[in-house]
């Protein structure tokens, strides 16, 4: 260091001035990009919000509960799509959470020899990266035909049952809400198990050893110590998966049947907000575009809500511990 200053005494002033300039420039450059991330989000929200205004003015909050989507008369309401988004997502969670957490437990404990466990963990994580459209393709040609039989049995067995029966009240066909829910469950399963496993593995070894030391069995340790300790991570993963399921487009569009008729039946055709956008955005104009933007805004809000909820839940759990 001393050497450097000694030799370049004469030039150092000049250099410092340039350096200072470059330094400042560099700071502002990075600051611009850092703040730019926020600006992009706001730009998206702004554009969607601005284009939604005519529809918001015309339909107000009634848009959220009305069930008609009629481009002929220019009357729009998105309840069918909101309902479809919620039903498919919750159906996916219902199926995928227990299974996904189960997988995470198997892959985090020492049930399996490491030689078998490692590739399995790897595979689960890779499966989380398979594109949605590939699930859709598989759904059309493999899953949908396969589900026909069991769905028919469900229909014949449960359609008459009061209350519960309304979920199965229409005859199943090759497209419908139930297929979309199941494909979403398969899609979010790897996300849930990968994140849950990370959370389980991250629990400090001491906690486990202490529990074993007190005479707890493996499952007592899991239920009373490890899962509670990893709970925030698991909830975070589930929430992330829920957000993914609600915004998922391609596989759902290919399998849900794209009907705007409201029906409580899981076997009926339906639509979600994102499938509605995928189907109609390219050709809509006027109030229809505006209503699609309104629907996109609702989806935006729903996913935002889930993300914030996830963060709040996670931080509350963290505080408790």
């Amino acid at each position, binding site marked *: 260091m001393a050497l450097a200053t000694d030799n370049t005494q004469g030039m150092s002033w000049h250099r410092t001035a340039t350096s200072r300039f470059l330094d400042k420039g560099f700071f502002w450059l990075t600051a611009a990009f850092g703040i730019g991330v926020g600006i992009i989000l706001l730009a998206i929200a702004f554009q969607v919000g601005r284009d939604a205004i005519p529809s918001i003015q015309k339909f107000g909050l009634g848009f959220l509960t009305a069930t008609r989507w*009629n*481009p002929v008369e220019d009357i729009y309401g998105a309840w069918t799509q909101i309902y479809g988004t919620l039903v498919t997502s919750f159906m996916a969670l219902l199926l995928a959470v227990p299974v996904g957490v189960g997988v995470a437990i198997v892959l985090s404990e020492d049930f399996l020899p490491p030689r078998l466990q490692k590739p399995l963990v790897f595979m689960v994580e890779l499966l989380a990266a398979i594109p949605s459209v590939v699930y859709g393709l598989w759904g059309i040609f493999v899953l949908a035909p396969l589900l026909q039989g069991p769905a028919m049995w469900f229909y014949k067995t449960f359609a008459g049952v009061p209350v519960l029966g309304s979920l199965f009240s229409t005859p199943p066909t*090759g497209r419908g809400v139930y297929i979309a829910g199941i494909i979403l469950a398969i899609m979010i399963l790897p996300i849930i198990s990968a994140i849950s496993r990370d959370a389980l593995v991250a629990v400090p070894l001491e906690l486990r050893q202490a529990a074993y030391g007190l005479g707890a069995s493996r499952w007592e340790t899991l239920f009373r110590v490890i899962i509670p300790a990893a709970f925030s991570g698991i909830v975070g993963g589930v929430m992330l998966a829920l957000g993914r399921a609600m915004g998922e487009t391609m596989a759902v569009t290919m399998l849900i049947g*794209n009907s705007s008729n409201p029906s409580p039946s899981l076997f009926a055709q339906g639509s979600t907000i994102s499938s509605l956008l995928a189907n109609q955005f390219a050709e809509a104009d006027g109030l229809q575009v505006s209503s699609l933007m309104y629907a996109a805004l609702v989806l935006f809000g729903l996913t935002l809500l889930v993300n914030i909820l996830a963060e709040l839940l996670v931080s509350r759990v963290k505080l408790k511990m």
Partner: protein
Amino acid sequence: MTGGGGAITLNGAGASAPNPLYQRWFADYNKVDPNVQISYQSVGSGAGVKQFIEQTVDFGASDDPLKDADRGKYPSARGAGPVQIPTTGIFVVFAYNLDGVENLKLSRESYCGIVDGSIKTWNDPKLTKENPDAKLPDTPITFAYRSDGSGTTAVFTKHLVKSCPNWKGGSGKSVEWPTGTGAKGNEGVTAQIQQASGTIGYTEFSYAKENALKVATLQNKAGEFITPSPEAAEKALVGVEPDKNLVVSVPDPEQKDAYPIVSLTYLLLYEQYPDSAKADALKKMVNWALKDGKAAVAELGYIPLPDEIATKVVTQLDTIKVASK
């Protein structure tokens, strides 16, 4: 790889009903004039009209002629108005997938009932009465319709408005369907029918023909049962005068032996092109298609354009401004 210096690339998008024909035409024309590459996307008539007005394509295509509202939005930078060119006749059939039932006959009352959801199973008394020889099962009917904005839907629903007293959905490129499953494009509806037994839906005839789907015989306005064929469909266009926009409207043809659901399909061109080479190429291509493209029309099962309309198309094409060469 892009074709080198002299290549002209034209991008078009729109109607799926004439898509097999257009793909054939554009591929054949590429052999006639290797410098012209035409890429056509079957995105549906609704998207075709929208993209045409927003100038994101070099030409659009629709089975449903431009409405006055659409014309009002025509970009003035592209001349006084759109050039709407009928290319061929299309007709919409009820294609179905039901094992062991070959020649399904549907009266007006029956097909209206299937569409509005009042006929729910294949062994409905109305259907069994009209098809005494067929073994109609007690399984549910799944009606397949278009989920995207579709000229085929517009043609079909215009007919429903005329022929079905109970039809409440109105007519247009996308309507509110009381029942059924939505699929994208004529391709999607055809695939849907093909894949699931018990499904019936409306598609352009060429799709049913190419994919060997069974098609229903329909009752026309005169009360006759007509088996769909290009010949029967052609009869609906006989003696009908096109208006000044070359639109032919036959929502429910009167002729005794005419198939009931028939329309023309249109290309949407601009009056002015910033690139005169594009205008030139498009003009030449359409002229070629009207003469040399007729073999493909017959082979694929479309209705050839009546001669008097074809002549008018040639004059209409001249309104497109082409740089003098």
